[in-house]
């Protein structure tokens, strides 16, 4: 039989498989997108019910307990609060879909303006933290995971126990007391002049980024470490080592591809956690981002702002989780990590 013969017949069948795989993947992506949209829709309902209905009457909250009932009633009509809840929800949802997120009860400005002012600042902070966190977590986690129960692993493990016990605001206060109050190297408050982004003054970013990173580093490192420890001791890696494949290649081609898909969804959860952690860090440093606006709005019960920002946070979280999920599937077609 011809030496070249075997290459042919499978060719005929392989494209079929590939096409099937691709449309399968397409269906998967579409299904996940639909699922994500459904979750977002459910979030809008949950947020609306919690903030607009359960929170009590926005008109009397705004005017105070001593207000004239007629004035309150007039404001209720103006704000549309006298309509049935379902209609209010649909109205709000429809407006949100058109890009109208309502008006702040406190400042009277459109919520979209507030978002436009602050979204960039928050995105820069989150991106900077993710940019420091991801490589640090991968390096430390791999380093420890490949040496299970030996000194590097125990050092990293002990450090992560300490870090896990530190809430963001405690980390932040400690950083401020050392680097701002004690040494005076960095500003304690991230004050930014009106209309100016943090990139013009990178020093205001250092402490917030450090606090965010330190607070989310430990769970991420642990995840990577656990995945690498399992994959590093797995039969596949052991067999490759026994066949003489160099350690660097074993780690790159056998251990990490097996470890990361499993860690990705949890990694995504850590990244969405950064969104929540930003609430604390932005508040602590007075950083002019969306999260500090959210905290102010909650404390002032500024419902439209809370609704809009919660929705935005949920959308970001769902998007990150979706990407991680799809990436994990792309990296691990066998689903062996699940």
């Amino acid at each position, binding site marked *: 039989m011809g030496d070249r013969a*075997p290459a042919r017949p*499978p*060719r005929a069948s*392989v494209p079929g498989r590939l096409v099937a795989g691709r449309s399968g993947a397409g269906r998967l992506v579409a299904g996940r997108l639909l699922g994500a949209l459904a*979750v977002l829709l*459910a*979030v809008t309902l949950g947020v609306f019910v919690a*903030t607009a209905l*359960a*929170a009590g009457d926005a008109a009397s909250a705004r005017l105070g307990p001593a207000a004239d009932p007629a004035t309150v009633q007039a404001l209720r009509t103006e704000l549309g609060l006298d309509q049935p809840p379902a209609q209010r929800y649909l109205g709000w949802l429809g407006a949100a879909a058109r890009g109208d997120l309502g008006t702040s009860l406190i400042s009277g400005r459109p919520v979209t303006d507030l978002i436009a002012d602050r979204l960039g600042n928050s995105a820069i902070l989150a991106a900077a933290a993710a940019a420091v966190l991801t490589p640090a977590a991968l390096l430390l986690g791999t380093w420890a995971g490949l040496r*299970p*129960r030996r000194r590097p692993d125990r050092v990293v*493990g002990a450090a992560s126990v*300490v870090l*896990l*016990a530190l*809430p963001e*605001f*405690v980390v932040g*206060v*400690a950083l401020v*007391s050392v680097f701002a109050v004690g040494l005076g190297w960095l500003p*304690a408050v991230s004050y930014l002049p009106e209309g100016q982004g943090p990139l013009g003054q990178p020093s205001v970013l250092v402490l917030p980024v450090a606090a965010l990173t330190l607070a989310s580093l430990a769970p991420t490192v642990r995840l990577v470490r656990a995945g690498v420890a399992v994959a590093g*001791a797995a*039969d596949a*890696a*052991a*067999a*490759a*080592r*026994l*066949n*003489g*494949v*160099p*350690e660097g*290649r074993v780690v790159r*081609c056998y251990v990490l*591809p*097996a470890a990361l898909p499993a860690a990705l969804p949890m990694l995504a959860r850590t990244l969405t*956690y950064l*969104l*929540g952690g930003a609430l*604390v860090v932005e*508040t602590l440093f007075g950083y002019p981002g969306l999260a500090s606006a*959210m*905290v102010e709005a*909650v*404390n002032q*019960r500024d*419902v439209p702002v*809370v609704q809009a*920002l*919660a929705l935005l946070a949920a959308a970001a979280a769902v998007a990150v*989780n979706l990407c991680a999920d799809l990436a994990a599937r792309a*990296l*691990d*077609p*066998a689903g*062996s990590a699940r």
Partner: protein
Amino acid sequence: MSRGTVRRALVWAPVALLVAAALAGPALAPGSVAAPVDIPYGPPAPGRPLGTDYAGVDVLSRTLAGGQRLLLTAALATVLAYALGTALGLLAAHRRGGVDTAVGGVADLLLALPAFVLLAVVVVATGPGVLGVAAATVGILLPDVVRTVRAVARSALARDHVEVAVLRGESGPAVLGREVLPYLARPLAADVPIRFTAAVYTGATAAFLGFGAAPPTPDWGLMVFENRAGLGIQPAAVLAPAACLFALLLALSWAAGRVGDRGGAAPAAARRGRRPSAPPAAGTGAPDAAGAVAALRGLELRDSAGRAVVGGAHLTLWPGRVVALVGPSGCGKTSCALALLGAVRPGLVWTGGVAHLAGEPTGPAVPRRRLRRLRARSVGYVAQDPRTGLPPHRPLRRLIGDVLAARAVPRARRAAQTVAALRRAGLDGSFADRRPHTLSGGQAQRAALAVALAADPPILVLDEPTSGLDPATTAAVLDEVVRRARGGGTAVLLISHDEAAVTRYADEVVRLDRAAAAPVPPVPSATSTLRALPAPEPPAGGAPAALRVRDLTVGRPGAGTLIDGLSLTVPAGGVVTVVGPSGCGKSTLLRTVAGLVEPVDGEVLLDGEPLPFPLARRTGALRRRIQLIAQNPYASLNPHHRVGAIVARPLRQFRTVPPAALADEVDALLALVSLDPDLAHRLPAALSGGQRQRVAIARALACRPRLLLCDEVTSALDATTAAAVVDTLDEVRRTAGTALMVVTHDPAVVARLPGAPLTLPATGERRPPRD
């Protein structure tokens, strides 16, 4: 009293101390927690060692009082989250379908909002205060608890012992309570400290954000927030509550880590395991036998507890010769082979002996890099389980390329060598682009062989290359590998418990014995009440057939038929053995009779009575009369129940014997299957595979069945044990009059049972692998 107890006490002591101090804090506070006593941010003074805060209140008093509320809220939230999460998770796992989707949806919804954003939304709804924070904390903890419970419950529900209980007609709550709940205790308990820590963390952060109690309340998080402006003037007002919080969370998360790390019972042992207590001297000269390519001399391996796993093994490999390493399972065959390659399995310690590979010493004392080069030059290794031995995502071309690169084969020649290696292993060149996860078990085994053969190594180590493969293909591939090895001067080490393969290929057989022989329990000669029982319901006139299957047709999951118009009769007290190639529907036949699979056509009669389908339509009395003994004795017994309870359960369920006689009946049943009644107090983990399978038989017999369905009951057992189990089954048949329907692929089982086997024909195409 034991060291473990002391260690546990030491782990929890700091936590208990801190928690107690925080709870008692308000009573310990020396001064007022709300009334100003000095100027704002006042310096330390007598009676006020930490000075005052932004409102002039004593920091020490506030700090002491600031933890109680936090801990109580967190505890409340944790308890609520566990109660709600366990209920929802069990419901989702058991009901599946719509309920599962709904519960999953709630979990997804809660997870879609980052934790603190969820907190913010809930606080807007409830207003700031402890209740809102507690509700939000429940919402944050809930999804993880639900998911853990759901996952554990689902995997428990999928285990054979659950199937056996369902087949026996146990109710839903009984299945969940008896068979599933024991699995939850451990994972849930292990997570309690983690969840509680998260609850404390959330509560403290909420207080810092101003979502918790209103200002005069002493609260650590709130204190940090209020006083942070004065960090430069009066740092104690911020640092004291922050330090308290940190200490509490640190103690909690440290303890959580210790609890979660249950393997942690042996960290000390594992640490010891790192250093071989007697490192084998490297370079003690070449192996004594001239011409040998690899040798082990007096290898001794111990586990972390110091027990010898391999005691003084010798092994020599010669060019062109096949050495087979045989012995009962658990005797250290693979560990020996790995030692020859210089690797020690985790948890084992190399305590004696030397190893040489291609003229160089190997062992834990040799640097890893040197070992790696040595192996690249000299060894091809095929791991035991091809499904885990190859990374699922890497194309075979790359896998083979890795080995060729390690051996410094020039890039230009790699493609040709890759195809050659695949072909030698019985695969054509098109497999180069396949990834292992797309291969069948047999193809994966051959792919692993191709990787090992790629670089033409002078030494080939094959770990159980015949396990779990169809014999014809294995033989063809192994024949070729061994023929080439003999011709090309390759030394082969074949690890196998397949006697046929060993006699066929080996030039020399090295037998390993279990280093420490496990005590064999004596077989008692007790009599069973079962023997004295009247014969089970006499057949309703005419032909004494226990089971009749008429024109049975069963569909394949996708489309087509798996069993096509099959008829058979199992006489009362008789036996029918069913054999056939894998995928022919043997197991499906049994599962259809058991009621787990619904037939397309035909009928199944028990004692002349047609059996209804599906299973749910069968009465308890009917279910009792047919018992299934599952393939895998490691999955068919609930690991949390003692043997006695497992065997007694059907007796209780069907009230076959008065409660007072239960213990005696259990003893008799155990004796009937040749088990020592003392084993009743053991957990399944303390039994061998054969003993477990006997317990499964005793449990089935406790139902007084008319018919026992045996699904490959010997496949997980070694040959001697398997024979004994089959003999037990046949004896039960003769003494208790229980008819047997035995599905097997093992000719030895067929030979030990009376009558000719019924052979099911192979179906047109292979069934896709079950997983």
